[in-house]
């Protein structure tokens, strides 16, 4: 079994988000980068499914050389090898095209991504890759099992879940519940240094989207404190002042 896991390199979840150049650039000063938390879930499930020699895992990242520590971390966690497409990730369309290009002749049985990247929250890449490759894409999955030639999947829907069976190959975007993220052990960290990491050049495509500027949310007004004994006052405030109940 051959599995491809897509990983993106994102600011650590505790990062204070700020912008420079008149709010057109994300301020990367002092920012720590990590594997997108959902991608760790995807990778963890891939490792579980490949355990005992049942398969091999390639991780792919579209990014410039600065993402290599994140790729090495994925190798330390347990991926077998890695591919980096040497380009700054411009938009999801571009990223998906690069991944599809690499995957189309790779013979992967399935491809996993995270449900969304925590920086741009696009949740676009998985389904776009699916469309580029003309394979099924299942977004925001909670459970994944591989049978002979099919996969059993549970997908989240409003107020419930959908149980799905899909033929291989397919691509799915993983959410919480699929697996618990794995922490690299010492042997993993040592071997990560020598595992293969191939760099490939991107294919150019026309730009379809561009971030023009950023904005930080307006600060909320002063908090109104209400006495814990006086819940009538809270209910009244929610009704007559905030008008939400």
């Amino acid at each position, binding site marked *: 079994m051959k599995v491809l896991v897509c990983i993106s390199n994102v600011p650590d*979840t505790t*990062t204070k988000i700020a*912008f420079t150049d008149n709010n057109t650039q994300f301020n990367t000063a002092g920012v720590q980068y990590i594997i997108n*938390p*959902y991608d760790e879930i995807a990778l963890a499930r891939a490792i579980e499914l490949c355990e005992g020699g049942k398969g091999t895992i390639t991780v792919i990242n579209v990014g410039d050389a600065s993402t290599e520590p994140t790729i090495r971390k994925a190798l330390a966690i347990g991926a077998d090898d890695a591919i980096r497409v040497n380009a700054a990730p411009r938009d*999801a*369309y571009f990223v998906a095209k690069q991944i599809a290009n690499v995957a189309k002749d790779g013979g992967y049985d399935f491809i996993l991504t995270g449900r969304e990247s*925590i*920086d741009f*929250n*696009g*949740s*676009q890449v*998985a*389904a*776009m890759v699916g*469309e580029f490759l003309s394979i099924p*894409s*299942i*977004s*925001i999955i909670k459970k994944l099992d591989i049978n002979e030639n099919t996969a059993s999947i549970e*997908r*989240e*829907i*409003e*107020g*419930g*879940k*959908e*149980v*799905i*069976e*899909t033929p291989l190959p397919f691509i799915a975007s993983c*959410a*919480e519940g699929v697996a618990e993220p794995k922490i690299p052990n010492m042997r993993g960290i040592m071997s990560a240094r020598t595992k293969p990491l191939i760099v490939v050049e991107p294919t150019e495509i026309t*730009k*379809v*989207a561009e*971030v*023009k*500027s*950023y*904005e930080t*949310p307006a600060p*909320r007004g002063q*908090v109104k*404190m*209400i*006495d*814990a*004994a006086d*819940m*009538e006052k*809270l*209910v009244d405030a*929610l*009704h007559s002042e*905030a008008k*939400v*109940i």
Partner: protein
Amino acid sequence: MSVLVYVENADGKFKKSTFEVVSYAKEIANQLGTSLTALSIGNVADGALAELGKYGAQKVLTVNNDKLKSFVNQAYASIISSAAKAEGSKVVVLAASFSGKGLAPRVAVKLEAGLVDGAVELPDLKDGKFTVKKTAFSGKAFAHVELTSAVKIVSLVPNSFKVVERPEAANVTAFESTAAESDFGVMIKDIVRASDKISLPDAELVVSAGRGMKGPENWGMVEELANLLGAATACSKPVSDAGWRPHSEHVGQTGIAISPNLYIAIGISGAIQHLAGVSSSKVIVVINKDPEAPFFKVADYGIVGDAFEVLPKLIDAIKKFKEAA
């Protein structure tokens, strides 16, 4: 030309979020000086389809087909893109629902279109441009994304645009499915919907609780409060990690991002990763026994107190309020 809006149904019925996207798409159509076409897939009754006119759809295309009764991602994407082509639509609007998130990117590739997933406002059409505001960095910021492709696709976050009535006489016509056999590889085995539950992403009111509740056995109060208000329930990550509540209730940076009208946070400290998913709630109430809890900094109303004492009082106060109403 016309703007095309895909109208999602659940078991043949349209939800409020569907009327939100129709209202949103209508406003875009008005600003572009064009008409609005809605596309429905699945078994929806004619009456419900005609009702889309109330929110401004002049034309309703419907694909009524048993094979398409439940959501088949690839097949739906094929139909939406061929409808967009047939209508010559330069703008396609969908809901950023669970299904919408799977659909929009496929439609985008088929139409070689740029996509903004998770718009929170109307696009800015100044100088002939098309720039859409969306959340970024998991609610810690917004990005203004310009779409530069010929066809543009926008999916709208539930609860971020008001339903507006702009009555039109909707002309309902059948649309032929263009889905190929190969679009039906995925089989839906089962759909499990807890019908008594309000779905979290759509909910206008949310009652959420964290580790301060001590254990799953204490969620009765949280659920009672939610039921009284007609609210959905949510929780912090450690609570779902510990299995006290299902993963589907986990909100935050690595859970669901929500923007309800009211978010009540009980015994949640307000860690930055939690706030990321809830900070776009319109009104936030925080109940925490620690006056220094960071959550108070982003709250509209704060109550310092023990949840085990505050909740029964709040439940009583709501009961009284409901009886008086």
